């Protein structure tokens, strides 16, 4: 679609260098974090030698691995649910103005506006009042709630200013609405959906407060586990787990790229 020669970047000289700076800034701590996972010394501040021991320790720490597994299960489930709900909502909201629109908008970003700890206690009280057994399921429900605005806003931003005629034309073109969605709307929305899903995923993966309060026996997630370590002090074991999460993420990304290749 876009011809390289028309790439306007060369006009705005600062852009490329800022982006390079951005990625350096982003990855600087990550390099440190990974390097430390190989530090023989238990203390981060002293480098005594190279070792793989922390990976061995981490891989034999069943509690921590279970926590990591819980984290991924929760993040994937919440991301999928939130992204679907947010995509539908963004499509609904983009079709012109309507009465009560401001209220609905506010509702969609409400989870963003309330401090986490208040949401956490409120949701816990609510689940207990309903008699729902606390566990991973309740954590997923709560995560989905606060992931919705993170998925919704980028998708909404994507749709803003987009020509509604495109979608309507598609509806005329394909008798089947699902097909119209699949062939036209979805590809149009894709950058927004991808952005929203990624943000949901990382916000869910890092959440401590809400996971802690709405979880039950057996639903400890990785952040909870790591925060709980302060009694004894955090060890490079955590760096090792983080580095392994990065590997998982890279595997994840590679797989999705491969699927992409096959599809197109």
């Amino acid at each position, binding site marked *: 679609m876009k011809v390289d020669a028309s790439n306007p970047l060369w006009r705005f000289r600062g852009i490329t260098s800022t982006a390079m700076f951005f990625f350096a800034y982003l990855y600087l701590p990550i390099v440190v974090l990974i390097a430390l996972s190989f530090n023989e010394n238990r203390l981060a501040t002293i480098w005594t030698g190279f070792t793989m021991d922390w990976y061995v320790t981490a891989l034999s720490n069943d509690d921590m691995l279970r926590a990591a597994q819980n984290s991924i299960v929760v993040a994937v489930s919440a991301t999928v649910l939130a992204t679907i709900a947010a995509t539908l909502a963004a499509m609904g909201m983009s079709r012109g103005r309507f009465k009560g629109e401001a209220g609905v908008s506010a509702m969609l970003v409400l989870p963003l506006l309330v401090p986490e700890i208040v949401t956490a206690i409120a949701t816990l009280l609510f689940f207990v009042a309903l008699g729902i057994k606390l566990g991973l399921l309740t954590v997923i429900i709560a995560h989905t709630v606060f992931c919705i605005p993170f998925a919704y806003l980028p998708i909404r*931003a994507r749709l803003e200013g987009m020509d509604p005629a495109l979608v309507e034309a598609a509806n005329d073109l394909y008798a089947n609405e699902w097909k119209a969605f699949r062939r036209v709307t979805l590809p149009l929305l894709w950058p927004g959906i991808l952005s929203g899903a990624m943000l949901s995923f990382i916000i869910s993966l890092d959440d401590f407060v809400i996971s802690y309060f709405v979880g039950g026996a057996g639903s400890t997630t990785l952040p909870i586990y790591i925060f709980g370590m302060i009694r004894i002090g955090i060890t490079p074991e955590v760096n090792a787990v983080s580095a392994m999460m990065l590997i998982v993420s890279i595997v994840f990304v590679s797989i999705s790229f491969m699927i992409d290749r096959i599809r197109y």
Partner: protein
Amino acid sequence: MGNILRTKRFWLVAPAVVYIGFFMAVPLLQMAYVSVLERGDYGGVNWGAFSMDAYISFIFERDLMDNLVVNTDYLQIFVRSFGLSAMTTVFALLLGFPTAFYISTQPQSRRNFLIFLVTIPFWTNILVRNYAWMLLLRNGGLIDGALNWMGLETGGLDVLYTPYAVSIGLTYTYLPFMVLPIYASLEKLDHRLVEAAFDLGADKRRAMSRVILPLAAPGIAAGCILVFIPCLGAYVTPELLGGGKFMMIANLIGSQFGAARNWPLGAGLGFVLLALVLISMMVYSFKFKSLPEESR
């Protein structure tokens, strides 16, 4: 036709709204009730015993003679948090907009790769990331050492445990939340438009302000919301990188559910924050409502 459209729209919006309504709004109503109750002796609340203490103590405190006097402690914490969030938002925008623009000008396959590259660091834990920053920023740490080695510096860097360190860390944490929404809206920019603007004699500034920025505006707005508001609730980064010397809203509210065991005050402070954010968003939308309209 209009009716069908309305029904369809209703069903599209309903899942998200109903879900949030049931699992968020209803629990919050219960929490609003908690905020006007008497606190329990050992934490929790005395159900059924009403008290407005939580809201009164936001502004007033009882002095030695048991008189109400104005207390600005909480207010100051709110002001500090709003200031820090605003600063973080500006930094994230300054760094995030050019990056999003850069990504949107790359070829398709590269774009998706770069988008992943933006989020991959956040698969690690927030605590470990902050620890890495502490190692980088401390005196005698990696940045300090590198600067010294290059002969650029005498004495310490003296950044860690200052507000500068906090803004470096917060900006870092919230960058993806700025970059991705802007990218999502900029991606639809047809660069031939920009080229056309140049051909018609526009200079860089005009091309930016007339063609690129209007397109990016919804993304910028979404990004600012996604950075500014969550940043108000940040507590880990300010504590670790700021050396725990100054409290943020989240620390204050958290301590009410923690050591102070004062649930009503914690809930009350939460609702004050909610009200402030809602008001500022309303002001914002009244002021800027017409902008996206014009840009179409």
